[in-house]
């Protein structure tokens, strides 16, 4: 098998290149002037020009969309982690009537894709005045990703030794005290992992945002990106700059929290 290792190394390196190149190409285009792009779109840009980025950020409204995304994602993740850890702790560590049925209900909700419920959800949102509001979108994200969050946090809390809960009770904590003082801090690694994944899901989503927050001033960043192409079909460097603005935060998060993201993705696949 030793020889095969070197044989496959070449296609693997080529594939790695194919994985990186699209982003490098886009970044390169974003640094060019329109003239440069039209004349030769493949040449490496001779200087780092930030004009297009600045233009996309200010005149295309990306800054507004960016802010909308940050607010919605931050609120969604906070609510997801709070509700998810409360429910996860209760389902994993407290015994009460119907807890296993509830857990099965959460699992069932996991299997319902958004596309299947989007029409009635839009109607419910419209009827309750939540359509096209920030709380509406936050609620939609929470509903979408909560089953997954509870699922992961329940399995995490199930690994916490019950003695810790017992000891905290003997020390005089109520159930709420156990949750707040013991479980929440102890769950930090799991919360980080689930939180990052949820933040990525919400940040990257376009379907839910399009459905729940359709109006122009409420656009999230990804919805903003979808409108770029039509606006800048004759100014590809600005278009590429907008795409880059939307991609960079994700890339930064990926560079620093790669492990946590992979842990969250694989948590369900490896256990049991």
């Amino acid at each position, binding site marked *: 098998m030793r020889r*095969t*290792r070197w044989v*496959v*190394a070449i296609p693997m390196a080529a*594939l*790695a290149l194919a*994985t990186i*190149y*699209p982003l490098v190409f886009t970044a390169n285009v974003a640094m060019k002037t329109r003239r440069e792009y039209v004349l030769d779109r493949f040449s490496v840009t001779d200087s780092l020009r930030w004009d297009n980025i600045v233009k996309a950020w200010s005149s295309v409204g990306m800054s507004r969309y960016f802010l909308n995304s940050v607010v919605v994602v931050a609120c969604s993740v906070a609510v997801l982690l709070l509700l998810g850890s409360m*429910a996860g*702790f*209760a389902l994993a560590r*407290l*015994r009460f*009537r119907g*807890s*296993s049925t*509830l*857990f099965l*209900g959460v*699992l069932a909700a996991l299997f*319902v*894709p*958004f*596309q*299947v*419920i*989007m*029409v009635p959800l839009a109607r419910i949102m419209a009827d309750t005045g939540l359509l096209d509001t920030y709380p509406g979108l936050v*609620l939609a994200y929470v*509903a*979408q990703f*909560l089953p*997954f969050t509870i*699922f*992961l946090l329940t*399995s995490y809390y*199930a690994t916490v030794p019950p003695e810790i809960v017992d000891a905290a009770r003997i020390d005089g904590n*109520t*159930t*709420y005290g156990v949750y707040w003082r013991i479980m929440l801090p102890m769950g930090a690694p799991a919360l980080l992992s689930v939180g990052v994944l949820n933040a990525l899901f919400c940040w*990257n*989503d*376009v*379907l839910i945002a399009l459905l729940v927050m359709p109006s122009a001033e409420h656009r999230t960043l990804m919805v903003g*990106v*979808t409108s770029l192409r039509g606006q800048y079909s004759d100014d590809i460097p600005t*278009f590429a700059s907008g795409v880059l603005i*939307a991609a960079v935060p*994700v890339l930064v998060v*990926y560079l620093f929290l790669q492990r946590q*993201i*992979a842990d969250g*993705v*694989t*948590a369900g*696949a*490896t*256990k*049991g």
Partner: protein
Amino acid sequence: MAGRSLSSVGPAVAEPTEGTAAAPAPKPAPRRTRRGSRAERLAPLVLVAPAVLVIVVLRLWPLVLGINFSFTGDGERNGTAVGLDNYLTLLDDPLFQTALRNVGLLVLLLPIAVAIPGLLATFVYLKVPGHRVYRGVYFFPAVLSPVIVAAIFNLLLAFDGPLNRLLGTVGLGPVDWLGDPDVTIFAVVGVHVWATFGMALVVFLAGFSTLDPSLLDAARVDGATLAQTIRHVIVPGLSRTIQFVFVTTMIGMLTSMFGLLYVMTGGGPEGSTYLPEYYIWIKQGQMNQPALASAASTALFLIMLLVGLAQIGVLRRTAGKED
């Protein structure tokens, strides 16, 4: 996205229930009433209630509403029961037929979409030169939004774009990736695979970490070739992971290509890249036919259930044979 969030269903199901499943049978009364206060007794319910409320009201209730809604009419017949009319309309609609045909195509392409990350994970696991780098590099497109991926590939797949230029240098003619109805669906699926194979790769690697290394050593001592090792050691040892990746990849193909379709093709050219999820979006939004969209939603749900069950059935049988 929904697909990704689903990626954690699966084998783990049994695990967390252990703590709770035991609950109903012998209920240790002292534990519940030790601190007899009402607040304390209600605590578990208080902790669970907000989450349950959100899930029931905004996920399970809409599912029921939607199925119910699919049997009512649109427009003038709004709210009246129409029986199976919407479903008959669906079957007659050429766009929906294309969407279903494309689902069939996805099912056919599925083995490739699973085999690529599977093989790559095998090589990474066997420590090909540079394996440490590959894991991180391959995984990175998986964290990008489909919208961003689509926007980038709009540039790459343009008629005078980099891919056609690459083809030109090796002597092949340019391909109209986003304009030829016979080609575009493959381009879109290809981009989807490009963007998501890293996700499956990471899951495969997690599966490998549970594989007994002594089996591989034994294969090596016996002088097994790579192909033999994969066939007789890796595939049987990872049957659960393979099954998991099959199901999640299929779900991903059916539910997380909206961003790609919306930005790359808009369903075109000539409606050739419709998938059920895009069809639902168009009928609900642009065509203002929510009841018809609900029928398509219900159909999509059924397709996903069927595909999932069929795959589990088939894979279970083949996995059984290997043993």
